[in-house]
């Protein structure tokens, strides 16, 4: 049974018709047209689908549209733009902290949530914050540098 849900994504209201247990991931990608959350595993094991929901990191591959409705959803597209990048985005470019980039969106989302809570994380705190994000290309060391750089930029 399809229902209509009101979603707030990146500060804009959307009304979507879907079955209530549809994973938010597919609604974001296919109904709202946001490319940044990616399918990687569908089971909360990789973090490529990460988005922010009411300030917390969420796995959009398992969060249902019913549970997401009415909450403030932020995707990578909502952080910044090429003209006006969020410090996390600027830092990932400055450190060239991506190879293929498939994991990068989810990692930047996790990094943003971390920095919102801990403005000056050491490498171990970054490790813990990113423990649910996998990267197969091996960008880990650069990601540490990028998150520290973003923290410095945010402190200014």
């Amino acid at each position, binding site marked *: 049974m399809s229902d209509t849900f009101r979603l707030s994504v990146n500060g804009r209201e959307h009304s979507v018709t*879907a*079955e209530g247990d*549809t*994973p938010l991931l*597919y609604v974001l*990608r*296919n109904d709202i*047209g*946001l*490319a*940044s959350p*990616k*399918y*990687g*595993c*569908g*089971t909360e*094991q*990789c973090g*490529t689908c990460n988005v922010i929901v009411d300030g917390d990191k969420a796995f959009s591959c398992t969060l249902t549209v019913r549970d997401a409705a009415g909450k403030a959803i932020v*995707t*990578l*597209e909502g952080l*910044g*733009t*090429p003209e006006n*990048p969020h410090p996390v*985005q600027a830092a*990932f*470019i400055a450190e*060239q902290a*991506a*190879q*293929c*980039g*498939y*994991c*990068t*969106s989810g990692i*930047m989302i996790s990094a943003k949530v971390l920095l919102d809570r801990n403005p000056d994380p050491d*490498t171990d705190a*970054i*490790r*813990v914050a*990113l*423990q649910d*994000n*996998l*990267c*197969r*290309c*091996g*960008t*880990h*060391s*650069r*990601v*540490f540098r990028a998150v520290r750089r973003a923290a410095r930029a945010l402190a200014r």
Partner: protein
Amino acid sequence: MAAEPKKLPGSLRNNPSLDLWIGIEADATVTVRSGKVEIGQGLKTAAAQVAAEELDVSLVRVRVKTADTAETADENVTSGSRSMEVSATALRYAAAECRAIMVRMAADRFGVPVDQLSVEDGTIRGPGSNQRITYWELMGGKKFGRDATGTVPPKVPQAHRIVGTRVERLDLPGKVFGQPAFVHDLTLPGMVHGRIVRPRHQSATLESVDTAAVEKLPGVIKVVRDGDFLGVVAETEVTAIAARDALHRAARWRAGPPLPDEDRLYEWMLGEATMDGGCIDGVHTDDCPPEEPPPKDAQTTLESLYARPYILHGAMGPSCAVAQWAGGTLTLHTHSQGVFPLRRALTNVFRMDEADIRCIHMDGAGCYGHNGADDVALDAALLARALPGRPVRVQWMRDDEHCWEPFGAAMVVKVRASLGADGRVADWRFDVWSNHHGNRPKGNPKESGLLAARMIENGLPPQTLGPATGSEAGEHRNAWPGYAFPRISVAKHFVTAHPFRCSSLRGLGAYANVFAIEQMMDELAVAAGQDPATFRLAHLPDPRARAVIEAARDAIAWGQHAATPGRGHGIAYARYKNAAAYCAVAVDAEVDETTGVIRVTRAVCAGDAGEAIAPDGIANQLEGGLIQSLSWTLKERVRFTPGEITSVDWETYPILTFREAPEVETLVLDRPGEKFLGVGEASQGPTAAAIANAVFAATGVRLRELPFTPERVRAMILEARRSA
């Protein structure tokens, strides 16, 4: 103009037309085309740098187009770390020649000799104040219409202003701001979604499936069954996934032959029938050299067995393709590493002309070799064939990717080495057992490297597998030691039985071969009472090889830590393929003896890839390879029971997490004017051996079987302590 085809450099040899490489556009931009593809290695950026440099245009004007069977040079597959060598070399010469042609045109116009002209950002200036014309005015949108001659020399390295500098990757901004960047993100008008249904045993066949109920699900457009091939197309992605689940429940599979016992995999390999060959002076021979006894005056002889399991490529994004049939022609958007070979393979399956199939490359998730990219392209084409006119997007689910991508081959290596009275290696015998490493789609029209081809009615059987007969190919890769030993004998044993489909995974045989060689070098150094780094240097005349070892050794502060139980450092070296980049890796490791957990606390990688066009790109490849190899080495192994593959997700096939990742320092030794050397696979082998050597330094225990899981490490340490 008489071209001399055999002298043309790089990929120009087979694709001499300048228009295949460079386009000068009317909008004051330059289109650079490469038949290679971006796989996260920074190919687009390096190609742009090379072309901008030779053309004297600024980098912002350059647009890079990668492989498209309708538009670019046929550069076969992007693999073996050869893109820079062949594609960048071709571009360099093509761009230099295009510049010369345009300067000549300007000179004729102004009536002055060429050497009085200069170029800055695409504007050609003569000595007169009004002698000024741009590339776009001269050529904008027109074709060069001629072949390269290869006679215009590129710039000397001293003149480089763009090449060799750190520039930001051109493809990153899109990915960092969430713009559609991958084939996974492609949407086309009228596009629908497909999913594939496959069992968890690669030789199981489809006994029966009742599709009627699934076909009635709202939103399901079609269930496609063709022999053992089963898939579904639906209006939405969510419906396609639900329908796939339903088909999984409905399908009955006939079991395939039992898989080997995973705990006795290496005994199984050593007991299977093999096809044997050898290697003399690094070159393949059909004869397998007999094993001679060690020299009579050998002081010490060591013999050890090393082994690696089946390993996954494990792309973060499961394979994806979008296919569309229209009027008997097929268009495919794919992240295949070789759109031209893919097209040839598809023409064989569909018995069509090449002209009727177009394969367009789009970025995919990092693939690290031959993964499911080509297979999902055929899957999508098969589903789309049932719905002419409609674009069908197919993405594999996580378990499809884990169970059906071609695995990296399991291997066993035996090394026997002797030390002479002078404390140097006097004799070296190397035996390698391996499954197949090179199963990419090839040209034989009677068989197919594409997965579904063997499943459909009137399909094609799998490609025949055989030993790699090229030097440095497959299991041969880095089997030949890069050291100056007086007597070397290398034997290769191709294990013919294949419980799984195997194909190229980053480094091919080099990962296990270097793991074995570089551990044995350590074992020999210890036996000779010598420092492992010094011992290696004593067998390496090549100054560039020595330089990377010295750089890694010095950066890790070799020998400067007080000996602490449970902590140690290790070093290892290889020149990839004995011909590509030089690489040394040094690591610090801590071993918790009670849990068996190994923690690599610091890692240093020193690499020499010849002239460094994009030094940061090289560093990225070296360090990414190091971390990936760390993951393979500490954690990875495809698990299975006799009846099925049990590594079906990231929990049952764990990889390195951020919690476990060390900080990596990378040193790129630039060699201006030297040939570009492939670097993408150089750090895989050395990393594995460096960790093993560090664990030995920390615990006195030798880990010769991969991966170094805590259970295994703990058991090995317990056993060593018990017998001590």
